[in-house]
């Protein structure tokens, strides 16, 4: 996993740095100096990392950072990771479709009920509690703007 992720990152950074330098070429001197001065070494370092990874595929370097849990078998880990990503994207979709005020309690309830298989009472209670704090603080107290979702606009509520 470390090998694959590092390779993906390395290649992505090479592409990004390369593109950044090329785009910067057309700018006036003062605007392009810094991006190019950083972009070129970053490109080289990324290339070095990718090459190193190809030459020493079994090295485990680690970082001063936390490590993802490794005790799970690969397939299970991958499936759960996709589930997590799915929920996040789903929440995003919910926010866009029905707006924050509805998406917030909805995602809490659905996750607790569907993913966690928690009992009805707990799921509903948690959703209501979270919604209460969210609504009370962010909407009533601070008047933060939460745009209406697309669905509300389509059916003409907003």
């Amino acid at each position: 996993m470390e090998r694959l992720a590092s390779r993906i990152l390395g290649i992505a950074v090479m592409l990004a740095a390369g593109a950044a330098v090329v785009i910067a070429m057309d700018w006036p001197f003062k605007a392009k100096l810094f991006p190019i001065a950083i972009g070129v070494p970053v490109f080289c370092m990324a290339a070095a990392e990718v090459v190193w990874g190809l030459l020493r595929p079994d090295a485990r370097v680690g970082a001063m950072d936390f490590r993802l849990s490794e005790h799970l078998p690969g397939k299970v880990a991958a499936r759960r990771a996709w589930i997590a990503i799915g929920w996040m994207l789903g929440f995003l979709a919910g926010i866009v479709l029905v707006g924050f005020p509805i998406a917030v309690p909805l995602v809490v309830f659905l996750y607790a009920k569907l993913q966690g298989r928690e009992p009805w009472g707990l799921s509903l209670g948690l959703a209501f509690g979270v919604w209460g704090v969210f609504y009370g603080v962010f909407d009533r107290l601070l008047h933060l703007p939460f745009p209406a979702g697309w669905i509300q606009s389509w059916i003409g509520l907003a």
Partner: protein
Amino acid sequence: MIEALFEGLLLVLQWKAFAFMLLGVVLGFWVGLLPGLGGVTTLALMLPFIYAMTPIEGFAFLLGMHSVVATTGDITSVLFGIPGEGTTAATILDGHSMAKKGEAGRALGAALASSLVGALVGAIALAVAIPVVRPLVLSFGSPELFMVAIVGIAFIASLSAQGGRGMLRGFLAGGLGLMVATVGQDPQAGIARYTFDSLYLWSGLDLVPILIGIFAIPEVIDLVLRGTSIAGDVPKGRLNQGALEGVRDTFRHFGLTLRCSLIGTFIGIMPGLGGAVAQWLAYGHAAQSARTAEERAGFGKGDVRGVLGPGAANNSKEGGALIPTVAFGVPGSSSMAILLGGFFLLGLVPGPDMLTTHLTVTFSMVWTIVLANIITVVACFLFLNHLARLTVVRGALLIPVILVLVFVGSYTANNNYGDLLLMLFFGAVGYLMVAGGWPRAPFVLGLVLGKIVENNLYISVARYEAEWLTRPIVLVLAALAVAVMFYPLLQARRSAARGG
């Protein structure tokens, strides 16, 4: 001056001012705790309410609120891995790792105790520095600020894993951070850099959604993966020994805590460096205190020193930031900019007068910081162990709440949906970095230092041409940068010599 010191204390202890301070503390507690309730924004929202207060009351309220935000922001960082404030992200690395090992209580105790030490040091520095603060701030011009930023970049070496490849990845991450910082309009030629004609990218990328994405998202994914509570399968008994142990840690490593407080105060005094820098430099310094290679590798995985350093620096920098605000009318941080507005509302003119004729008011501010922090820390300790229990709540209940905090926190930075996409994008980047063994701390450091490095370099060259390179403080800082850069090599050699 001593009379002013005591008079300042008496002013704060008047019951009305004290009550307002308590109110501010209560507000600040929640502001720091909830990601998305930015300290700066809330201060701005509170400004109108101080119209009716006298200067002392108004300051007790504003400062009471403000002093507390960094402390409680650490709580969210430790418990959930979400930065409660942009300035408490560094605490996540070790603080949240400790929570995952079942040591949430200890991490919280350490964060709170070090915050208190930091606040006290910052306040003392404010009081003590008053005679020398003007020449001190005036001697740090753009060339010196540039060099301080370079020293910061040199810290990347201390934030990377040992060995050639570790350093390579560290500097890669740092360089990436520097590049991301260039997005937006440049202040030399006015070119819109890397904006691809998007209005959203035109003002540059906001730090808060990036921090939330890069730190919180990988933690959430990992939590789903594990399928357990945050503390995992750690036996419950261990949690409760926590908080006091954390306090003991603070004193066990008192030298480190003190040094990081001083780093924070110094960064706070220098206007133009920004609030997010101090925590990372302190973290880097804490990593330098590791004596063996294994110890060093343990950072980021639950070393209490990784909590002490940023915890102290965060609070001390606010005391430091008060100095240029009060003495020059130049805000040392964005929250100070709001406080400056408060100054005017309350009829005070920041400047040399605040250090002479209005010295009592200045001291009352110092006391407010001290008292607000003491009260907060004591109050938090009362239910720290209860807070720590959140880490054994089932993942399925906690994860959706964390997700809500993450999304709301990213959105309220600018009330823009684009920030949600930004957060998710860097969430993906963060996840790949964690999976691929690339350190995230250098990335954030590069991101917060990018503009400072570029702009101060241009100003220095434009103003002084080549002679800025020979200014005495610049040379000292350059030497410091070299030392910081090569310190990890020294560390590695020393630990190899010890056979470690």
